[in-house]
């Protein structure tokens, strides 16, 4: 590889050909400010439209300033990142962006976590010398995501995530000049577009142009209602990220403190979605083994590979783009919905509360969960199994409003029985975790042998698509794993073309799985945060006494006293679902 020598701010540096000035500067510890740029290189995610011009630098011999994010290093280049010309240009650019941005910072959902706000502070903007045209556009609210285009700075990060990484293609830049917005086709509302509610647009939006629908008010009202019993479940990825919202190091596990906080907030029972994750493994694992047994017996009709079905954005994706294959995914509901349906039947009966008086709240790293719990099939006579799904960020806000300092709270345990869980359930929070959990249980049931090791390191990692073969007593079980819907699409197309060699495939819509979900504290383009969360998830797994779902005593009791067997009629009724073809919405504006 060619090496290129240049100097940046009088410091010599050698970099491989193809390195941008931005990257070369970072290797020297020089942090050139960026706004539209986003790079999660471990995940092959990059946005560098060079649109905002905040990262401009002076290159000796060039007439114009160059955007560092999109300028390749060249031999002998002399770059200056902070002379007066550069600083003035940056300030001008920033003032022009701000001249078309509403000044609502104090009441804005992104107040304190906004990249635009912190950039304005970093550049020392105290006055705006330009009176811009403040373009306005209607607000668009969907079940999960709110679009407030007035706050959009056209960085195109959302467009890149939606089109390039997720291949959903719901968002695109439309119109031009002051009328330019990022919008769905024909500027229809997001709800009618091909959006899957994965929330990755929200996860990368530098401002409050894209935010989640806030349900904290509804939860607070339920908690204040003496006639309601309010219970809460927390998804595995939340405990690995919540601490970040309180200034803790990424990857700090706050399971016990989170439980204390939820109890302080007034939830009557603090439960764990992990309980339902173990239940998912019982159902999905049994389904996998059922299909596998039929396959081994020579049944040609059996549908393999089986696909996991816990991720609601992924479910939306295949219902939209691969509806012809809707008999392939497992019929198991997601852990959130299994929890809700067991809570409002088995648990409600146990504590003698009517389902109408029981409010189930879930804390999720996810925006699609807000949509999922509103799906009609997950309600009984109009009463939803899960009433409200809050994001990790919303929980952090509730904790702050209750004057609690998460760091100082004592650790406490989840309530029983729906707080009991295993290490297998915890790893649902990361890419590769669901299939590893399924393998731990399916292996033991299939072979009748006890596993010597429960860690399947070959299934772990952050590569976009991974595959591994696990020896099932002489039968090589081939497993595929994809995170990100664009990667999932590749595996799905293989299946459609009859080229897939897998028996089971795990798919998560978000980068890294739920740890990188659209409802998590913002990573601001730092992939080391996702890695730290992933590590924390595996640590929690190792700390668990029981690490296989079928050994969860509370799950065993649930089957013994209520469900019977996995895939029983009752289990089918309460824990399984069916999928619908979603039409790529046709236009209906006229």
């Amino acid at each position, binding site marked *: 590889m060619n090496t290129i020598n240049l100097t940046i701010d009088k410091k010599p540096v050698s970099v491989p050909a193809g390195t941008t000035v931005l990257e070369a500067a970072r290797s020297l510890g020089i942090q050139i400010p960026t706004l539209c740029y986003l790079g999660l290189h471990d995940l092959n995610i990059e946005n560098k439209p060079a649109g905002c011009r905040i990262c401009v630098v002076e290159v000796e011999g060039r007439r114009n300033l160059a955007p560092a994010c999109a300028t390749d290093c060249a031999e002998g280049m002399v770059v200056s990142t902070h002379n007066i010309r550069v600083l003035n240009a940056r300030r001008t650019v920033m003032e022009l962006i701000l001249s078309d941005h509403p000044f609502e910072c104090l009441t804005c959902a992104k107040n304190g976590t906004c990249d635009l706000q912190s950039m304005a502070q970093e550049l020392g903007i105290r006055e705006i010398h330009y009176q811009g045209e403040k373009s306005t556009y209607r607000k668009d609210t969907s079940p999960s995501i709110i679009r407030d285009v007035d706050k959009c700075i056209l960085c195109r990060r959302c467009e890149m995530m939606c089109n390039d990484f997720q291949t959903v293609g719901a968002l*695109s830049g439309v119109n031009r000049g002051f009328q330019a917005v990022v919008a769905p086709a024909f500027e229809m509302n997001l709800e009618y577009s091909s959006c899957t509610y994965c929330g990755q647009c929200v996860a990368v939006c530098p401002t409050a142009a894209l935010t989640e629908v806030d349900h904290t008010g509804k939860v607070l009202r339920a908690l204040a209602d003496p006639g309601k019993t309010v219970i809460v479940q927390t998804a595995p990825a939340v405990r690995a990220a919540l601490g970040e919202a309180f200034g803790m190091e990424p990857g700090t596990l706050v399971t016990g403190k989170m439980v204390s906080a939820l109890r302080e907030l007034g939830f009557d029972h603090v439960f764990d979605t992990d309980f339902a994750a173990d239940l998912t493994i019982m159902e999905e694992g049994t389904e996998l083994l059922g299909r596998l047994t039929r396959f081994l017996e020579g049944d040609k009709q059996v549908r393999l590979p089986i696909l996991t079905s816990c991720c609601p954005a992924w479910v939306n994706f295949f219902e939209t783009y691969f509806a012809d294959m809707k008999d392939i995914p497992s019929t198991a509901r997601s852990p959130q919905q299994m929890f809700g349906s067991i809570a409002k039947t088995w648990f409600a009966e146990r504590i003698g509360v009517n389902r109408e008086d029981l409010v189930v709240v879930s804390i999720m790293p996810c925006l699609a969960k807000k949509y999922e719990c509103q799906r009609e099939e997950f309600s009984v006579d109009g009463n939803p199994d899960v009433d409200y799904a809050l994001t990790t960020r919303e929980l952090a806000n509730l904790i702050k409003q209750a004057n609690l300092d998460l760091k100082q709270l004592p650790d406490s345990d989840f309530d029983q029985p729906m707080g009991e869980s295993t290490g297998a359930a915890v790893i649902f929070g990361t890419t590769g975790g669901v299939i590893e959990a399924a393998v731990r249980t399916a292996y033991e049931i299939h072979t009748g042998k006890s596993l010597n090791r429960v860690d399947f390191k070959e299934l772990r990692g952050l590569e976009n698509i991974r595959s591994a073969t696990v020896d099932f007593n002489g039968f090589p079980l081939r497993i595929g794993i994809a995170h990100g819907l664009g990667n999932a699409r590749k595996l799905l197309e293989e299946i459609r073309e009859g080229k897939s060699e897998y028996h089971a495939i795990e798919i998560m819509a978000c980068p890294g799985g739920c740890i990188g979900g659209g409802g998590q504290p913002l990573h601001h383009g730092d992939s080391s945060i996702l890695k730290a969360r992933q590590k924390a998830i595996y640590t929690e797994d190792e700390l668990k006494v029981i690490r296989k779902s079928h050994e969860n005593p509370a799950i065993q009791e649930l089957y013994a006293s209520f469900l019977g067997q996995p895939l029983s009629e009752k289990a089918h009724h309460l824990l399984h679902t069916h999928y619908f073809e979603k039409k790529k919405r046709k236009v209906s504006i006229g």
Partner: protein
Amino acid sequence: MTSIKVELKQHQAEKLREVCRSFGNQEGELINVLHKAQGIFGYLPAEVQEMVAEELNVPVARVYGVVTFYSFFSMIPKGRNPISICTGTACYVRGAEKVLDEFRKQLSIGIGETTPDGKFSINCLRCVGACGLAPVVMIGEKTYGRVAPDEVKAILKEYEND
């Protein structure tokens, strides 16, 4: 932006597919395909964009993005008698803007719009190469030279029974 709802007829749909095929259904040919499609339909209703998106395997949002970016593309059908007013330099200095204003006033529509009865639409263009006749107006294939604002009413009257 609104669109007028149309159902693509079978033969129109087939024609559009043929256009896409002639460009190898290549994503990179999107602008060329849209150009041809507008030639066929006179404009680009949503249904046409959806079909192009499907054939070229690009998100329909992206197709819409391209259609709204280039002023050449339109989602509004032209009138049966499309009025083109030259606003090139020569016509402009000879009073094209006043002529344009008069057409807008008489028809109560703006540039790029079509009258509700579908009879007229107004568009501006840059230089038709007949600067000696400035200001120039074209209605369909017919050219009017040295148009004065007070003649607009009479010109429109020619299309009374159309």
